[in-house]
């Protein structure tokens, strides 16, 4: 009997990020978190293989940013990155979908949104639709992978977590709740291999037609008080933030006070079961 192969084949989709202050190319934060998650998976499941995949132009600036991911793989099995070379402004989705359909990894991990370009966060969804694979968003951790089924932790707002089970192959997208990425080592990043394969490019004409400008500051919403009298409007504008209609329990025993508080906590549903 053959020993069951424990490892999984993981492809991490990486992109070129943008430093929020300087605007320079760097490794994208969410993609780096995704890679960190894949590296953690590899440590737990020996025999796993990690592939890095990027579709885009192979300019010098992009290459140094992409090597930032390779520098995270020092001391692990991660050694090379597949670069599907496309001209600027080309649509990455068909190229990636074609490559993934041919390579058939079990898990594809991506960031949620790109830091450059349109950044609509649509790529994982479009890939999932192309390939017909399930997609889980907002991943916090991969708990285990067994018999072609992965158990995952999904991050929800307010620090909550939900456990999900998904059949492989699947696409997982990672946002800020993923594990913080390790530092990138410069030497291994220089030495690592970058396999560039030119692919057919479909130029994204629609994107080229849109008008893009640096983000304007959004106008702050004003508190509009609809009232007939000037006095009411002035009072509303000058009012301090106060609850106003609060209930005050004075001269009650601590048990009665505690009961009132407990009632409110139950109504709001914040107490754990």
């Amino acid at each position, binding site marked *: 009997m053959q020993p069951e192969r424990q490892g999984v084949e993981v492809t991490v989709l990486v992109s070129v990020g943008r430093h929020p202050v300087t605007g320079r190319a760097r490794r994208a934060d969410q993609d780096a978190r995704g890679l960190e998650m894949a590296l953690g998976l590899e440590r737990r499941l020996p025999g796993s293989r990690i592939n890095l995949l990027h579709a885009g132009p192979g300019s010098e600036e992009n290459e140094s940013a992409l090597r930032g991911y390779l520098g995270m793989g020092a001391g692990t099995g991660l050694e090379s990155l597949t670069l599907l070379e496309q001209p600027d402004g080309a649509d990455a989705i068909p190229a990636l979908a074609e490559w993934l359909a041919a390579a058939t990894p079990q898990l594809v991990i991506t960031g949620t949104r790109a830091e450059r*370009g349109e*950044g609509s966060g649509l790529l994982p969804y479009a890939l999932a639709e192309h390939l017909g694979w399930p997609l889980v968003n*907002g991943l916090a951790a991969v708990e285990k992978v067994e018999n072609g089924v992965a158990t995952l932790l999904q991050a929800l707002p307010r620090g909550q977590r939900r456990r999900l089970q998904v059949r492989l192959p699947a696409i997982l997208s990672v946002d800020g709740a993923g594990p913080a990425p390790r530092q990138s080592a410069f030497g291994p990043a220089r030495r690592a291999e970058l396999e560039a394969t030119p692919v057919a490019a479909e130029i994204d004409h629609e994107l080229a037609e849109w008008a893009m*400008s640096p983000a304007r500051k959004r106008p702050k919403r004003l508190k509009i008080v609809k009232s007939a009298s000037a006095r009411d409007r002035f009072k509303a504008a000058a009012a301090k933030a106060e609850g106003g209609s609060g209930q005050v329990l004075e001269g009650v025993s601590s048990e009665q006070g505690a009961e009132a*508080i407990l009632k*409110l906590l139950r109504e709001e549903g914040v107490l754990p079961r």
Partner: protein
Amino acid sequence: MTEILRRDPRRERIARNRLHPEHLETLAQEGGCTASAWMGPNGRMRKDPHAKGFIGPNGLRRLDRSGVQQGTSMAAARAAGVAEQRPLVEVEAPAFLVAVVPDMAGGRLTGHDRDLLGLARQLADADPEARGAVLAVVFGTHKDEGLAEAGIDRLLQLDAPGFEGHAPEARLGALMAVDQAWQPRHWLLPDSPLGGADLGRRLAVRLGERPATGVWQLEADAASPLGWCCTNRGAAESLDIRRPLPRLALALAECAEPVSETRHAVHGVTLPETLPSQLVRIEDLGMVPVDPAGVALSEAEFILSAGNGVRDWAGFHHAARVLGATEGASRVAVDDGHMARDRQVGATGTWVSARVYLAVGISGAIQHLQGIQSCDKVVAINMDPGCDMIKRADLAVIGDSARVLEALVALVEQSREERRDAA
């Protein structure tokens, strides 16, 4: 109360006689008159310019133009009640539909949902000749009373058990059925982590649309196919992209003003066909209990916060553990070394957005109150009934904080014990 008006000649006489000792009280009871204006004997309004205002506490005459201080009559109160009721707008035969899928976190419309419905109304009401209707698709049961005020014309409620929890595939199937049944001209979803962002993108790729994501501005534009042009955020909030509005848009919070002037008929609708069963590839195994101490203070849902009035720190930490609350502190408690710096709530610490904020022994400095501005419910336990925190709190208990917390912990533990015995 009967609406038949009855005349009382004696009271009318008193109301006419300004020198009568009961003149003012009678005027206040009579409808339509105040001390400064009344109906004269031959039907004309008479005004007394000297009777305006009231005498303030220091003996000076004060004018109050809001009309609150002068005798508010029954008729005025009735009129106010009618004014509060917004006019009902019904769209009988809509020219098109604007489909909105609100998040409905906890069964209620969020602020983001209301903004989105405001945006939907903007799209629906743009052309008074051919008005559209706003169709809201709500998954699960809703507890919100204000759906009509939020601007919903048609409500499709889908509360099959298959839509509960994380069920993107089932929800997507239902939305596709909606699309086939009614062909809405616009689809609007909130671009929010509560589920709208995920569902909207799934729907977009299934419909084969290229959605506008992060929409924050909308302008009429005759050159675009749908007659609208939108501005959306792209590239990690660093780009503004101006493009024609596609059929499906995911909008940010504050994309439009919520509906404030009209009320809408929330007509329930049902899908013409039953939904086909979906292949479920993502299985929801339920929520995972998280360690409240590990939750970031800024996104914690329930915070137990300690201030200068707390003496029994062991009891406080124990209470936080039992209640499952994230611990917070005021600046004084942090400065004194009782709590870590990253637990500080307030202007110099963390701005929190908890649903329930339980403040123990915090007097409520203005910096602290700023930090808890966006909390929904504030509960205060304090010794001093005059402090600012009590004024802000929705529920305040005046008493020894250690004793009240102890009693609260005992109550919670007791109820858990009972439930365990019952199970």
